[in-house]
């Protein structure tokens, strides 16, 4: 049995916290759509709506919190960071 790699776990956690996955948006969404979806999710989380508390990833659902939503919105506001995240959720040809 191989040893558990903490670094690999951290890398994977970063991939699964991709802002496009957190906000449940396609990679070509315009900035306005990002803000709108982020605001909607924050409102839903504030009223405790059950469906907003989790988001889908290739490895099953993950917990969504107001902090993760705010972080995701902030990441997508920076064009360079956004480009990296877009690249990771690109559709395979």
């Amino acid at each position, binding site marked *: *049995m191989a040893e*558990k790699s903490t670094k*690999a776990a951290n*890398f*994977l956690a970063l991939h699964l916290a991709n802002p496009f996955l957190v906000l449940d948006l396609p990679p070509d969404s315009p900035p306005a759509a990002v803000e709108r979806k982020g605001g909607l999710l924050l409102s839903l989380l504030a009223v405790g709506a059950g469906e907003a508390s989790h988001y889908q990833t290739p490895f099953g659902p993950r917990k969504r919190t107001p902090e993760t939503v705010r972080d995701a919105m902030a990441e997508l506001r920076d064009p*360079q960071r956004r*480009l990296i995240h877009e690249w990771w959720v690109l559709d*395979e040809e």
Partner: protein
Amino acid sequence: MRSKSSPAPARRAAQRKAEINGEMPWRLLLVYFSMVTEYVIFVVLWTIDLLYAHLSIKPEWLDQSIVIAGAAIPVFLTHVWFCPWLAWRICRPLGLFFFARRLYRFTPGASRRDIENFEALLRALRGVVPAPPPPMKKGPGIKRLRFLLVNKKPLPFLVDAKTTLMLALSREVLGDYALAERLLQTFELCPPGLKALGIFRPFVFEELAWHAAKRGDWNAVLRRARMGSGRGMLLMRLLAEKHLGRRVHRAALWFAFLISPSRRRAVRLVSDAEKLAPGEFIQRPGCREGLRLTHMLLLSKASEGISIDLGEVFRLAEAWDHEFAVRKQENLLRRGMEIGARDVLGLARRIEENVLDELEEMAAAAEGEIPREVLAGRDEDEASYEERLFSRLRNRLYRDVDALLDLFRVESGEKVEEGNLLEHWENWLSLCESVSRFHRLLGKDELSMLWYGTLRNAVWNSITRIFNDHGYRVAFISMIMFNWVTEMCRLLGDEEGATVNRNNTKLCRDELLVKQRVRKQISKWAA
């Protein structure tokens, strides 16, 4: 004094209840069933044997002697086996560790060392790592107690096969599976006849196999079941073979289940195995489509300690190489300009480096060989993505061995303390594994450079120092370490080193055998 309402007793009771899974009547019934079936099988077989002897033997004196012997042998066997059996098979599953400890003391012929080892085994089951006894208190009161044989002098701490086995069990319980597996490899390195595990062999290997089965690591179950012995091991071996897709006869599986101990916890595993069609594997769910998803799947496996094939990682690196080809990067540049990102080329290089970092992590956790085409096509001027990965892996292997070797580079005259012996042993096993991986991946030439450069003298001196400092107490591990150095010298054509270390191995083995023989003689005399 603790009040009745204090939470500790309640918590302990809840813990005990959780330990026995809240099904005391069922468990007691099964234990009772187990005792009765085993006793009935034994009595029936023995009676048939005696009847046969009675009917077939003609001289009356011989017949009577056989009947007397036949009546005495079961009593003797029951007396010898009953206490350990009762302690391990009955008290331990019920969580009655206090009674288990006390019962084991009544085992005829059990030395003080055996009793202490059994107590350490019960502690290891709860995740307590074996350790040397605390330093003795001094004073007239203690002397008086020792004179009255109430307070005995603690026995010296031995780092032998049993301690290694208990250490592996405690590591397994604590969730350090890789280290547990590494410790168990000791028994594959040890020459036969020198392990002297006795009653620990069926007990501990069975427990280790159960732990591996619980987390679904059937390869580990099979390895452990092969190392152990007994009825439980037969069932575990068949279960592992069934889960690994080999053909196992249904009747054999159920027969092994019926004669095995701890049937209650086995029943679910057997029924799960029954549902598997021959040749069917239980596979972890995962996504297998697309480059990015494959990348994440391998990362997930590396993070969970699930074995990955190194060839798979290099194939992934090749696929990334295609992905990073100029045509694909054009899309990134175009998109960068659209959203107003600066320095897109720098960004592309950063992505490449990040992917390489992640691939390196996967390769470090992977097992198997590097594909031949990667080794054959190494070109220093224009390195492909796989070659860059190979170069990183190579540096990492050197770094790993160096980091472990630092732990063995003690200044001359510095002694490894008794309390650090097990840690030293674990470090040595890690070093051994790293060197073997280094050899497997980089070949004999690079190993030779490493061996003569730093490894040989550091390892050799460290083993000699530890054996000189602690003597027979570390004879078992010293023997395995010297044996390993002998094998390495032989592999690399160092005849002088091989001869000296072969003699050192023999010295340790003799020391171990002398101690074992003396111990046996003492227990015989005491009995």
